[in-house]
């Protein structure tokens, strides 16, 4: 059986990781490679690096950083943020990224999924969906950090992304993101019934229990988290040990 994955997510701005506490043993918490190595050593199964730079210069810095990450880290890593063309994807693959994550650009231009998957394979393409449940109960995919609802509905969009060649779906509930109140597990389970590619759960984890629930009741294949790791509330190793105690298959 393939193990459930735990994936720390690191936000990078102008080549530096943002937020996070200064861990013991870590000289520079802003160094994306060093922080990644710290998580990898602690048992992280993969890493996600999200470029939140707003400028072209920041993006170029990120590409050079991806080369350093690839040289310095021995677990798979995904990069996301600002990828809007096949050229962007190619540049990041050449820099050493194992996967890329696309979000707003895929909603604006769904055939981007087809072209990247056809060129580099589905395993390279993660489609991130930031969805918000509207007052009418419909889960609507949003862009621009959740601020703009799109015409895509979560389940049909996830299925379309799969059919176009996505290898994984990274689903964040914008109703739960940042609340630390747990994930919408029923929605995750419904998503698992809708598609056959792996699902990464993101947004809302406040405790080990939340993560355990989304991996079991929510049937997610992986859980991605940022703050609970960055603020040192729990280590990846401790989290995985506690998941194993709950009979969840994780790599120890």
């Amino acid at each position, binding site marked *: *059986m*393939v*193990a*459930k*994955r735990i994936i720390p997510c690191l936000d990078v701005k102008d080549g530096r990781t943002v937020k996070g506490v200064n861990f013991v043993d870590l000289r520079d918490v802003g160094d994306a490679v060093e922080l990644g190595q710290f998580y990898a050593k602690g048992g992280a*199964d993969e890493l996600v690096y999200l470029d939140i730079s707003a400028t072209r210069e920041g993006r170029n810095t990120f590409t050079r950083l991806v080369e350093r990450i*690839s*040289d310095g880290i021995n*677990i*798979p890593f995904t990069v996301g943020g600002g990828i809007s063309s096949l050229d962007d994807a190619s540049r990041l*693959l*050449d*820099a*050493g990224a*194992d996967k890329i994550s696309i979000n707003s650009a895929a909603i604006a231009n769904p055939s981007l999924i087809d072209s990247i998957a*056809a*060129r*580099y*394979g*589905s*395993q*390279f393409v993660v489609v991130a969906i930031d969805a918000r449940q509207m007052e009418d109960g419909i889960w609507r995919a949003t862009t621009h950090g959740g601020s703009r609802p799109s015409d895509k509905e979560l389940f049909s969009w996830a299925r379309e992304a799969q059919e176009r060649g996505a*290898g*994984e779906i990274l689903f964040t509930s914008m109703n739960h993101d940042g609340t630390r109140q747990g994930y919408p597990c029923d929605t995750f389970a419904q998503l698992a*019934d809708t598609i*056959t*590619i*792996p699902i990464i759960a993101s947004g809302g984890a406040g405790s080990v229990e939340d993560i355990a629930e989304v991996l079991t009741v929510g049937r997610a*294949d*992986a859980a991605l988290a940022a703050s609970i790791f960055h603020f040192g509330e729990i280590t990846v190793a401790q989290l995985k040990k506690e998941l194993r105690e709950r009979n969840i298959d994780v*790599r120890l």
Partner: protein
Amino acid sequence: MGNLRSVENVLKRLGAEFCVTADADVVRAADRVLLPGVGNAAEAMENLHKAGLVDVIRSLRQPVLGICVGMQVMCRHSEEGDVDCLNIFDTHVKRFVPTADLKVPHMGWNKIGNLESKLFKGIEGGSYVYFVHSFYPELCPDTIATATHGKMFSAAL
């Protein structure tokens, strides 16, 4: 084909002397040959045909290691693009059929077992390795490692 950089990184880390080439003479003269690959078996075979490397690879007598799609194209045939491959290993590459409990691609850390080659020196049965694939070579007499995703398949040949 594929993501050469991670292979290059490992070789650099090991201090190996290597070059990246599609030149038949360079490949023939090498002490050892790595055939990496990401993507699509049919496309990989097309590229090998275009580069005139199909018979070259089949004729090599030095150690050759196919990685990922590079290993799959060393089999007889692949369902991915319904393509005839290099036919070095007499087995068929099939697609995982997804079910409610079986995600495809098979993605993440899974255990390998039945290790039957000195390639795995220092690696114990039951070790985790990272898999990312939708196609797998069926078990055959050349299988030297197995993993299970719905059914048992050849993780190495």
